[in-house]
């Protein structure tokens, strides 16, 4: 493998891995803030115990998300130094803003939240988790602004003297319509991930609490009072997020048909330019290229609507035609992304949505009017629903990032055509052996940590709400500060 391939594998693995944890953090922080607010407002201790229970899961996940995030920032310089030189004037700014306006807040206030349970007044402590919840979303905004410059460069022009892209409008960069669509879509996806997580764990516990084998009837009743509101809250947020995903995904898709026609043509395996093409449900091919694909199942009207919002009179460009067009404009190269990956990741992203959506509807039905579901299949459905949004998130980003290949900065059809860069131009000229070393290091380390992460989450979910979290600690008089035990300690 050459250094471009190894570097791409490393970036892909580390980024996909990082984005397993991030959506759960982004979505779970506001949900925990809502739970804690419900406790502070209603004084209902069930909400306190939920805050503590999901708070622990949140922190197990937060740690690994933060730890793997530093790699992301360093990698641009380490492995994509030519890219860093080319876009640094534009791309560095949102990263620095992310540090100043988001990471400082979330990392400082998470410390206050973890250790401040009895040190801070109740409302101040509540404000801490809200600041964390806002900050994680602000960080998502800035990193997506940076990513959107790669998808659709705006606010910058090419300077031939310095041979790089240079920023001329920060408002254009921050107001990039690609960023707006991608940010709302990502936040909706994160909320779905976290809401499904909360709802499914709640539902699983409800079924468990109803089992006749339970020898502790008190514990069962306890679990019901705690997890019922969690399941219902999670289901409603999941349903709203699913609807949000359709709308935000639709507007993002319509932008992509204009901004990156090659990505969308690949997603449809649309090889030749057609008017009112059918939407493909199943296409098979033997060689992963346009010469060997057969479109097996198709639906009319859908694709024109996805692209333009109307059902006919829509002409969409095919892969072959765009390839020819790019060759004419940008010189000889293969401008086609991996057809198989773009086609299937797009479908996986959409198809996987059905699982949490279906689960949320069933769960709301089964818990209606105070009912406690006892069906074994239902607790299985809950467990299956948890990973589905994670996989959908991954599929979506694999589609977005692999669909822009071979570009690292896709030329903007209406912008400065010189602001464009391919992954081959972007990579650091390392010996590929060295990058293989780091690829293996990260992959092994990440694999071990993933196993521990999963095991810890599972262990804490199965254990349920802990006894020592049953009652909130009484507010402490300041004179005790020097001698009283810490309310929390590592």
């Amino acid at each position, binding site marked *: 493998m050459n250094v471009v391939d190894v570097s791409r594998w490393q970036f892909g693995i580390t980024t996909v891995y990082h984005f397993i944890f991030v959506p759960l953090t982004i979505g779970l922080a506001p949900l925990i803030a809502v739970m804690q607010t419900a406790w502070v407002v209603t004084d209902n201790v069930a909400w306190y115990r939920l805050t503590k229970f999901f708070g622990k899961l949140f922190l197990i996940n937060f740690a690994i998300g933060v730890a793997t995030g530093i790699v992301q920032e360093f990698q641009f310089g380490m492995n994509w130094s030519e890219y860093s*030189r080319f876009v640094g004037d534009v791309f*560095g700014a949102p990263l620095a803003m992310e*540090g100043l306006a988001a990471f400082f807040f979330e990392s400082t206030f998470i410390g206050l939240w973890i250790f401040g349970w009895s040190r801070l007044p109740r409302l101040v402590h509540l404000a801490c988790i809200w600041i964390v919840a806002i900050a994680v979303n602000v960080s998502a905004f800035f990193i997506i602004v940076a990513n959107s410059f790669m998808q659709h460069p705006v606010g910058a022009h090419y300077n031939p003297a310095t041979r790089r892209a240079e920023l001329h409008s920060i408002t254009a960069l921050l107001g990039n319509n690609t960023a707006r669509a991608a940010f709302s879509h990502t936040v909706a996806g994160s909320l779905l991930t976290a809401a499904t997580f909360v709802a499914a764990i709640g539902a699983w516990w409800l079924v468990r609490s109803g089992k006749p084998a339970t020898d502790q009837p008190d514990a069962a009743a306890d679990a019901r009072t705690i997890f019922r509101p969690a399941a219902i809250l999670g289901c409603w947020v999941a349903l709203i997020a699913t609807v949000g995903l359709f709308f935000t995904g639709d507007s993002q898709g319509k932008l992509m048909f204009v901004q990156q026609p090659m990505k969308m043509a690949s997603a449809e395996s649309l090889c030749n330019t057609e008017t009112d093409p059918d939407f493909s449900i199943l296409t098979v091919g033997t060689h992963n290229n346009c010469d060997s694909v057969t479109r097996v199942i198709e639906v009319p009207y859908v694709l024109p609507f996805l692209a333009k919002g109307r059902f006919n009179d829509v002409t969409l460009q095919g892969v072959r035609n765009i390839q020819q067009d790019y060759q004419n404009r940008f010189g000889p190269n293969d401008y086609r992304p991996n057809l198989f990956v773009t086609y299937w990741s797009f479908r996986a992203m959409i198809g996987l949505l059905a699982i949490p959506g279906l689960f949320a509807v069933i769960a709301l039905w089964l818990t209606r009017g105070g009912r406690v579901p006892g069906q074994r299949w239902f607790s299985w459905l809950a467990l299956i629903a948890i990973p589905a949004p994670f996989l959908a998130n991954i599929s979506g980003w694999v589609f977005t990032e692999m669909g822009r290949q071979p570009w690292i900065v896709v030329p903007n059809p209406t912008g400065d055509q010189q602001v464009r860069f391919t992954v081959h131009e972007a990579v650091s000229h390392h010996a590929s052996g060295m990058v293989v070393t780091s690829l293996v290091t990260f992959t092994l380390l990440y694999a071990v940590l993933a196993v521990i992460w999963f095991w810890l989450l599972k262990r804490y979910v199965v254990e349920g709400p802990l006894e020592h979290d049953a009652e909130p600690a009484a507010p402490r008089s300041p004179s005790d500060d020097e001698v009283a035990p810490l309310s929390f300690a590592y």
Partner: protein
Amino acid sequence: MGLQELWFGIIGLLFLGFFILEGFDFGVGMLMEPFARVGVGEPETHRRAALNTIGPVWDGNEVWLITAGAAMFAAFPAWYAAVFSTLYLPLLAILFGMIVRSVSIEWRGKIDDSKWRALADFGIAAGSWLPAVLWGVAFAVLVRGLPVDANGRVDVSITDVLNAYTLLGGLATAGLFLFYGAVFVALKTSGAIRDDAHRFAVRLSLPVTALVGGFGLWTQLAYGKDWTWLVLTVAVIAQLAAVALVWRRASDGWAFLCTAVVVAGVVILLFGALYPNLVPSTLNKQWSVTIYNGSSTPYTLKIMTWVTALMAPLTVIYQGWTYWVFRQRISADRIPPATGLARRAS
């Protein structure tokens, strides 16, 4: 002062913040195990007391590094690109260390099991030693210079990264952080743990002074400017004052402050020696990456200046407030029983 000078200063300040804050975090991580071994009383309580002195703050401290890195990217892309790609393997080791350290700190108390804790303690120790040594190496490499060619690209050889000067740099930062960590634990604890921390600080004081002084002097003589003599002098006086305070056990607060001044002095000395270069070329001085040929456009720098002027003071205020909230000393009695789960459900 132009924007390029200003941004060199801001990045210097971000690294200053990182080393002043994360410096004692690294020190605490490096000292946790030695503490537990020599201390009077239960080793596990010793470890936990040490770890909890940085518990609420270490995560926020680490962001100074992330922001410093992003600021390098935004303000001096040529610097960021050259340094990060050239120091690939040291940075890989630093990343490895910091990842292992973060999850070890956060996950350590989640399972109540001695093997689990031993694993986490190893992660915390390794994850603190690696960056503590390697940041010193990395900055020494930078000050010493790299074979930058006419296009700003670097073809690095092993001797550019590992040589007597850079190894001394690594030992100096690691030693300084050890001492700094001991002084910090003495400031933040009471009872037997404080006595132990104090004993460590006394034992470390002379070798660390020699290491840091030697590295500072070498840096000054080989790469320093006239005005950095002043920085070196202040740092040496602060170090001697810290040693005297530690020996006499006069004031934990002043000893900590003096050591912080030493850390600041080392960072200012290194950045002062570098200025106005970002990566001095060992092949031809004309080829060095400087703040003038390596910077972003004035427009980008101006925007980043506004954002920093707005956010940085706020950050200092709320981080400062966090230290105020958790200002109480920690003793063995104040460590609550472990709340982690057993490895297996009962």
